[in-house]
């Protein structure tokens, strides 16, 4: 079905090219948005194509994030890259270091004279994709953050007030009561590294690595084996041992455990809201992430996850005007409001956020503004504006591996985090050497 649709889109684009006197230039857009999200992507492209005659954006679903990134790299090596490719946040440093393979978004906009004001964007969202000089390198497309969900029914069943605990200390106390009341799965999480290392660090305003979490240079080293990190992971490992925390897996497996009503508390992406609503099995609330209240400066603000759009180099010069027009179209408040309210991903501009709020959408859909609120809780610091580590695809898996060792009791938290830091640093050095 999808392939047919793509074929039809390609054919349609071809016909337009042949038919119109002024041939429209095709802009290839590779993305990883499957299912309902893919339909939204298609709708955006169609709307843009209908809004002008000179360019036709052709969205192509290229598979999951790692697959489409690999495909884009292979296409670049074969000298036939797409114009725009959607790359997940862990690939950011790799894309950024590939000077000559990509064109910074700021440059694309400037060269084509398209209206572009970097200040219009949410700083915690664009900060992730902006260099230290303030040049936006890629355009954030779908961004979410880590949030904390509770199952109100499970709380009531255990005789608890259905209010989310604010701190980890409170969470643990609640967890013990839930367990005592017979709750089999008390707390679980999706995306263990993203939630419990990356967002955890930003939320507590402590560094993940030196050089502003790697944004200041390739010679960064990891620091997430601090006493605070060790304490947090040890707490989770202890909770796992006591049966208060169930490890669900490396990606989004926790979502289903919460949406299905199996687990009473859950940390995961803001984009899990859609699935929980669709399953409709639990009475839930979405809240800020818990924090350790004895840490000064906590809670700070959380960081994003998701993906951004990169413009690839090596295309005819004229094409980039079309790319710039399309990126401008994507940043319009109307486009953003539609994307935000339709998917749960955060809007990338302040204007879109204000417009959504003014429309009363958040009153009718509680929880949809939680991500933006948490991302913008305070002005981001060097520890909380994002991270930029080379080879992070591998490093995130190293972190997950070591967390698994801690959660299964094979290693204590200190040893696991020390090993993760050491292995991570080795991988960083390799990236540094390869990108000298």
């Amino acid at each position: 079905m999808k392939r047919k649709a793509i074929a039809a889109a390609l054919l349609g684009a071809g016909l337009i090219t042949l038919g119109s006197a002024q041939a429209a230039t095709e802009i290839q857009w590779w993305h990883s948005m499957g299912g309902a999200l893919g339909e939204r992507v298609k709708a955006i492209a169609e709307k843009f194509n209908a809004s002008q005659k000179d360019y036709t954006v052709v969205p192509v679903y290229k598979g999951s994030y790692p697959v489409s990134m690999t495909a884009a790299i292979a296409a670049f090596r074969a000298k036939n890259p797409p114009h725009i490719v959607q790359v997940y946040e862990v690939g950011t440093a790799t894309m950024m270091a590939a000077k000559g393979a990509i064109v910074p978004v700021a440059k694309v906009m400037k060269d084509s004279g398209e209206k572009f004001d970097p200040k219009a964007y949410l700083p915690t969202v664009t900060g992730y994709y902006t260099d230290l000089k303030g040049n936006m390198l890629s355009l954030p497309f779908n961004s979410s953050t880590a949030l904390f969900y509770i199952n109100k029914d499970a709380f009531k069943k255990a005789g608890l007030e259905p209010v989310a605990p604010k701190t980890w200390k409170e969470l643990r106390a609640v967890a013990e009561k839930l367990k005592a009341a017979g709750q089999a799965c008390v707390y679980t999480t999706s995306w263990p590294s993203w939630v419990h290392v990356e967002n955890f660090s930003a939320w507590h305003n402590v560094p993940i690595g030196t050089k502003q979490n790697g944004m200041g240079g390739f010679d960064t080293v990891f620091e997430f084996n601090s006493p605070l990190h060790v304490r947090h992971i040890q707490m989770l490992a202890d909770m796992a041992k006591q049966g208060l925390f169930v490890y669900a897996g490396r990606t989004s497996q926790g979502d289903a455990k919460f949406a299905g009503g199996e687990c009473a508390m859950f940390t995961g992406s803001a984009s899990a809201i859609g699935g929980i609503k669709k399953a409709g099995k639990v009475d839930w609330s979405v809240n800020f992430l818990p924090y350790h209240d004895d840490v000064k400066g906590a809670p700070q603000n959380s960081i994003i996850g998701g993906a951004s759009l990169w413009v690839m180099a090596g295309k005819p010069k004229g094409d980039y005007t079309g790319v710039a027009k399309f990126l401008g179209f994507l940043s319009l408040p109307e486009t953003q409001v539609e994307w935000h309210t339709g998917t749960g991903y955060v809007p990338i501009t302040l204007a879109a956020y204000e417009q959504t709020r003014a429309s009363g959408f958040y009153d009718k859909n509680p929880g949809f503004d939680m991500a933006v609120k948490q991302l913008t809780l305070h002005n981001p610091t060097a520890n909380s504006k994002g991270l930029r580590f080379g080879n992070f695809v591998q490093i995130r898996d190293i972190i997950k591996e070591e967390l698994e060792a801690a959660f299964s009791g094979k290693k204590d938290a200190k040893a696991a985090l020390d090993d993760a830091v050491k292995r991570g640093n080795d991988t960083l050095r390799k990236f540094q050497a390869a990108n000298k």
Partner: protein
Amino acid sequence: MEKRVVFRSAWLPYLLVAPQIAITVVFFFWPAVQAVWYSFLLQDAFGLKTQFVGLQNFVALFNDPHYLQSFKITALFSVLVAGSGIVISLLLAAMADRVIRGALAYKTLLIWPYAVAPAIAGVLWAFMFAPSIGIVTYALKKMGVDWNWVVNGDQAMLLVVIAAVWNQISYNFLFFLAGLQSIPKSLIEAAAIDGAGPVRRFGSIVLPLLSPTTFFLLVINIVYAFFATFGVIDATTQGGPAGATQILVYKVFYDGVKAGDLGGSSAQSVVLMFIVITLTVIQFRFIERRVQY
């Protein structure tokens, strides 16, 4: 009694084998040479910058305790996959060989799993054993077994072994069945007349006569466990938890394809190439001598 065809022409024999040689060179030797060459390079993912680093990729590999651990895991995994794969399929073949009524149906059903791609086999088994929604998990929970392979390494290993073996049983079964059917009935009947029971007949006559087949399958199954199983692993555990199912070939695939580290991945595949060459030489020099053709 040797029959030999002698080509009079100087070039004709070469022309006749040329297509085969061309295919081997293009699809086997050329990639192998490239892997060796890349294993000496350090390159960024896009191929924009390339440096010659000598043996540095290999040094890094052997300084990584997780890579060394992955050898042990691979050894365990291949012994389990090849061993249980051969034993189970021999058992099935021996039983299918004795069945008279509906033999064709049994055989067809037993051969069926071979048509399933390893990645799909992995997904199927992962679904059945999924920690919270799997049907087998549900049954195990009822029996009081805490089944959660996303955190328990031994259970994860068991899962990938089951999926990998299930996929390979049909292949082994086919060869064993053919082997069994080529054993002359008169031999077995003679033994039966001499008073040998079914177990004795199987141990003293059938098994030795099957040894060429078993040897062949041993080689094939080891190669299968070493190379063809990364689809199963990628679809289920992705090497986890905590590296418990990180076999060598999966790491090659992961580092090269997913992480874009061509140098490191090539170095690993060169190491893997040497292991398999060594294993095959050992198998042919030492084990094959004990095979009776």
